[in-house]
């Protein structure tokens, strides 16, 4: 096996399950329980990518989700074809599985040889605010030079090139207690919270193994037993409790209002044999009674020259790789630290057989028991030393260190040869989720950390994210957060550190690169420069330098950046403030957020009962509101214009059949139904007899037209109202609003019946002849059943509400049948209509027909600023009714002023020319720009029945200008048109007025 740095025994990997993954085309060997990072280290390599800006070689900094450097493109199911790759996976948390294909990022032509590394030499020009300073001028360089060059060079991984082939699931859950993190604090909290069985508890942890920091701990004991034995006992106890759900591989990434918490569970990526039907990830939305945050802490890097060389990692990560993965990160390690915890890493490295030197910036007398322990183990410890720089390029080869004098002066430098560095600048509690919950952070100077202060929601923090670091205290803190109390004996932890921001050096600080933010390539000198240039708020420094703004949200870098800004300004750290933490805690795939709502389910299409027939018969569809509607039915290769010409002709000469099912329909029932109608519509309804219909107009309170439609009075106390297709839900909501809030005294019920009644329109001179034989119980004579009337009966044996109405000017019927019967009634009528050469027509034809006879469409002619008078519909406004919605507004000064746009027709000089809908109208095309625009074209069609093009327009004072000439914009310029009445076809049949 190609694992020279794998220890012969130990670790938590399963040596009975060997596996290989592909890494930049070569095979890495490892075991179940490995990550790609641990497999790479086992092979003896640290090189895991190139940096964002300078293309510097980067290794593996950490062992967890805070990893800023080792970002990989991973194809999770290369065997299944394209669509399973995503970029920017942190190598430290990619659970190894046979067959994974991983690639490093941000280099060309290869990881080893990357021409982009020239940026490192050019770094003097890539200073903080580079973009702001560079792209000011010259203007013509913006889109020709800067944009293309920067676009190519910017960004880390490559976005997937094909749609994601995976499935994603979602789930909602409620619980009494949600515990975030299954380290010692979280486990202890879950154990306490679930103890009496009365609370539903969810325990979620981002890792694939539970135990948190204890997974990396080979020496600590709890109650005399190895710490992991305590973890296993605790997990077994939790598993046995019915009220506990334990979710490994589940990252809590968002904390929202009222304890609404979002988590993503990785369901399939780690499975060898995952059925293709299995969702890759599951988005959980949990509403928790209480949330216990046990999110742990992040170790801080030390800031010194070239602190980003591959081989330099966080000290506790050295422990993790040795103890959990049984991998040595090198042969010779220097542990550089400003605190106690790194001594444990040094001891573990020594015990595992590495050569170890410890460099501690603290003075001898500031160290605790850890110092003696290290020396007792035979480790050379250099206290009171600073790190000047690292040596090497693609792998660290040495560390230059020097003693610090009492006055801070740098002593004689020593080079410590090494192939690995473990560094520790102290610890930062993970307060991301607490901060997302809008809790207020409080700075603790002793711990040099922001800790959870005032809570905004029902949440508590426990353990390291609460500033508690000693193992026994962490377990007690967790139990307390879970509502219990426990005292355990545990190995005392090495705690405490001396905050350092940038390690003292005698090098010219403006010439060295000492990285603060590894992922965004922000150095200490960038931050100092930003402060020198006048940025004092951390929020401004952050945006100017981009520190903390990478995908890792500065988990490892924020405190170093804050401390450096505070130190440069000579202020206390809390005075500089802290930046805002925002979801997601770690990157989340779009797939998980979108879930099943993609493709056909993204925006589900509403279809009518007759839609299958239309599809079979070659309809071309268009979206109308949420509906899909047949637009026209082309025959023999017709284009739209030809098909519409044929369909419109057929309706005026014989009969057409049209699916009007999408009309909004509302039934208004009750003793006060007529009074309600009087108040909602402009028309008067009291005298409308049952069995008769009327065209109704509805205004908003501001007097502008809101909707229209035919209204039928079925009985004294029952109206069947129709609305525009798109307006159905808002008209019902508008009615409900007035009924509930203004007129609760009215005894009326409103019910949507849009879906219940399908509507088949038969229009044309042969409509009655076609329909009559199929209808029983209805007298079709004009006296009994005239235009604008309604009756109930049976059509083809199916109960129907039969309207004699017309939206075409021809004799017409709208047959309302229960939706389930609509297709069969349609087919029967269509078959019988063959002897009249019946033509099915769609919405485009309907639009032309209604325009020919001058019927408006609300939302096409109107735009929310048209009054009834603007549309020539004053006749529909009752002068008698004392009040209705919008009435008072119609007499406001601006509503009756001259100069309002009015509905007119436009006839182009060239009768074949069809104007563009939306085209602007001017009097004089030669006038200077900006021209005075008088209105616009609202509807425009080629009309075969009129033998020319027709158009409607809203034009200032249009009705008084009929016969005059105006100019209308075209794609080429202007064309001339004559103002006319907005009625173009001489109606021989029936009008909508009644």
């Amino acid at each position, binding site marked *: 096996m190609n694992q020279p740095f794998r220890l012969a025994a130990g670790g938590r990997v399963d040596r009975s399950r060997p596996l290989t993954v592909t890494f930049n085309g070569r095979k890495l060997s490892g075991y179940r329980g490995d990550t790609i990072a641990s497999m790479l280290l086992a092979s003896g390599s640290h090189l895991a990518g190139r940096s964002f800006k300078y293309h510097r070689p980067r290794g593996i900094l950490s062992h967890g989700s805070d990893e800023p450097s080792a970002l990989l493109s991973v194809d999770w199911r290369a065997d299944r074809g394209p669509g399973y790759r995503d970029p920017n996976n942190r190598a430290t948390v990619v659970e190894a599985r046979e067959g994974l294909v991983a690639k490093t990022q941000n280099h060309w032509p290869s990881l080893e040889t990357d021409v982009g590394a020239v940026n490192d030499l050019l770094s003097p020009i890539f200073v903080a605010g580079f973009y702001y300073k560079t792209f000011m001028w010259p203007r013509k360089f913006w889109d020709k030079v800067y944009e293309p060059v920067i676009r190519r060079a910017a960004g880390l991984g490559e976005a997937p090139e094909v749609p994601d082939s995976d499935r994603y699931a979602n789930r909602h859950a409620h619980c009494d207690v949600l515990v975030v993190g299954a380290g010692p604090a979280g486990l202890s909290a879950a154990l306490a919270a679930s103890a009496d069985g009365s609370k539903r508890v969810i325990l979620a942890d981002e890792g694939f193994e539970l135990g948190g920091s204890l997974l990396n701990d080979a020496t600590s004991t709890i109650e005399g037993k190895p710490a992991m034995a305590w973890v296993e006992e605790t997990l077994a106890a939790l598993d046995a409790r019915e009220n506990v759900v334990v979710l490994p591989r589940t990252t809590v990434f968002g904390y929202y*209002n009222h304890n609404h918490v979002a988590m993503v569970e990785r369901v399939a990526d780690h499975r060898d044999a995952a059925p293709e039907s299995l969702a890759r990830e599951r988005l959980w939305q949990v509403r928790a009674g209480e949330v216990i945050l046990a999110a742990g802490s992040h170790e801080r890097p030390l800031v010194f020259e070239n602190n980003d060389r591959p081989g330099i990692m966080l000290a506790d990560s050295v422990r993790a790789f040795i103890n959990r993965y049984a991998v040595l990160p090198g042969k010779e390690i220097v542990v550089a630290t400003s605190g106690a915890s790194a001594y444990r890493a040094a001891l573990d490295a020594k015990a595992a057989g590495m050569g170890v030197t410890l460099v501690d910036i603290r003075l001898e007398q500031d160290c605790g028991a850890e110092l003696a322990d290290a020396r007792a183990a035979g480790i050379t410890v250099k206290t009171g030393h600073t790190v000047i720089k690292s040596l090497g390029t693609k792998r660290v080869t040495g560390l230059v260190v020097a003693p610090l004098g009492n006055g801070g002066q740098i002593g004689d430098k020593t080079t410590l040869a090494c192939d690995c560095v473990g560094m520790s600048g102290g610890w930062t509690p993970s307060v991301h989720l607490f901060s997302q919950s809008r809790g207020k952070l409080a700075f603790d100077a002793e711990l040099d950390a922001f800790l959870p202060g005032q809570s905004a929601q029902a949440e508590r923090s426990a353990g390291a994210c609460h500033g508690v670091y000693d193992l026994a205290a962490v377990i007690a803190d967790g139990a307390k957060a879970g509502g219990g109390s426990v005292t355990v004996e545990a190995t005392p932890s090495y705690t405490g550190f001396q905050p350092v921001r940038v390690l003292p050096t005698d090098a010219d600080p403006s010439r060295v690169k000492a990285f603060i933010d590894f992922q965004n390539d922000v150095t200490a000198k960038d931050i100092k420069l930003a402060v020198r240039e006048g940025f004092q708020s951390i929020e401004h420094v952050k945006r100017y330098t981009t520190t903390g703004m990478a995908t890792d949200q500065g988990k490892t870098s924020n405190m170093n950046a804050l401390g450096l800004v505070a130190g440069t300004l000579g202020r206390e750290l809390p005075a500089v403030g802290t930046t805002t933490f925002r979801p997601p805690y770690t990157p989340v795939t779009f797939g998980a957020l979108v879930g099943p709502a993609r493709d056909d389910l993204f925006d589900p299409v509403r279809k009518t009962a007759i839609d299958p027939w239309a599809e079979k018969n070659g309809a071309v569809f268009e979206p109308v509101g949420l509906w899909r509607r047949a637009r026209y039915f082309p025959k023999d290769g017709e284009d739209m214009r030809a098909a519409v010409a044929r369909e419109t002709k057929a309706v005026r000469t014989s009969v057409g059949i049209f699916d009007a099912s999408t009309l909004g329909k509302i039934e208004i029932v009750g003793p006060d139904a007529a009074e309600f109608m009087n108040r909602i519509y402009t028309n008067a309804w009291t005298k409308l007899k049952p069995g008769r219909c009327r065209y109704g107009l509805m205004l908003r309170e501001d007097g502008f037209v809101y909707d229209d439609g035919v209204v039928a009075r079925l009985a004294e106390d029952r109206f069947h109202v129709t609305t525009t297709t798109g307006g159905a839900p808002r008209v019902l909501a508008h009615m409900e609003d007035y009924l509930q*809030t203004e007129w609760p005294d009215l005894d009326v019920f409103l019910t949507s019946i849009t879906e219940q009644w399908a509507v088949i329109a038969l229009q044309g001179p042969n409509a009655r002849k076609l329909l009559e034989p199929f209808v029983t119980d209805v007298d079709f004579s004009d006296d009994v059943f005239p235009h604008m009337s309604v009756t109930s009966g049976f059509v083809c044996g199916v109960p129907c509400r039969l309207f004699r109405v017309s939206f075409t000017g021809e004799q017409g019927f709208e047959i309302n049948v229960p939706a389930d019967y609509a297709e069969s009634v349609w087919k029967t009528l269509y078959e019988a209509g063959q002897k009249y050469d019946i033509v099915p027509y769609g919405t485009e034809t309907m639009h032309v027909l209604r325009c020919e006879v001058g019927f408006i469409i609300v939302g096409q002619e109107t735009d929310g600023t048209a009054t009834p008078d603007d549309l020539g519909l004053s006749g529909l406004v009752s002068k008698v009714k004392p009040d209705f919605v919008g009435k008072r*507004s119609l007499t406001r000064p601006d509503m009756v002023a001259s100069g309002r746009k009015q509905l007119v027709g436009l006839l182009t000089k060239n009768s074949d020319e069809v104007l563009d809908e939306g085209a602007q109208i001017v009097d004089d095309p030669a006038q200077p720009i900006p021209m005075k625009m008088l209105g616009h074209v609202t509807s425009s069609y080629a009309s075969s029945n009129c033998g020319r093009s027709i158009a409607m327009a809203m034009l200032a004072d249009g009705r008084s200008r009929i016969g005059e000439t105006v100019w209308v914009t075209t794609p080429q310029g202007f064309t001339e048109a004559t103002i006319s009445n907005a009625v173009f076809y001489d109606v021989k049949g029936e009008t909508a007025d009644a």
Partner: protein
Amino acid sequence: MLLIRCPYCGERPEVEFHCGGEAHIARPETPTETSDADWAGFLYYRTNPRGVHAERWVHNHGCGRWFNALRDTVSDRFVTTYEMGTPRPEAGSDVTRA
């Protein structure tokens, strides 16, 4: 996502609701006798306070009923909700619970 307490259904997620603007804007009893200025005030003028705001809400993806709410426009916190037609609760009264 906020939980909003519908007076008829209890606490439900905010996506089930729709806000209908400021509450307690009485429609004039006799609009025709209302001056242009007063009518414009009714139509267009709102208090837009910083702090507690009385609002109309409708549980449109639930029971469909309108109710009123006191909401803090700074914190987005719902102070209380109450039935249409009842007066605005005074600050500190028993009904003003979250």
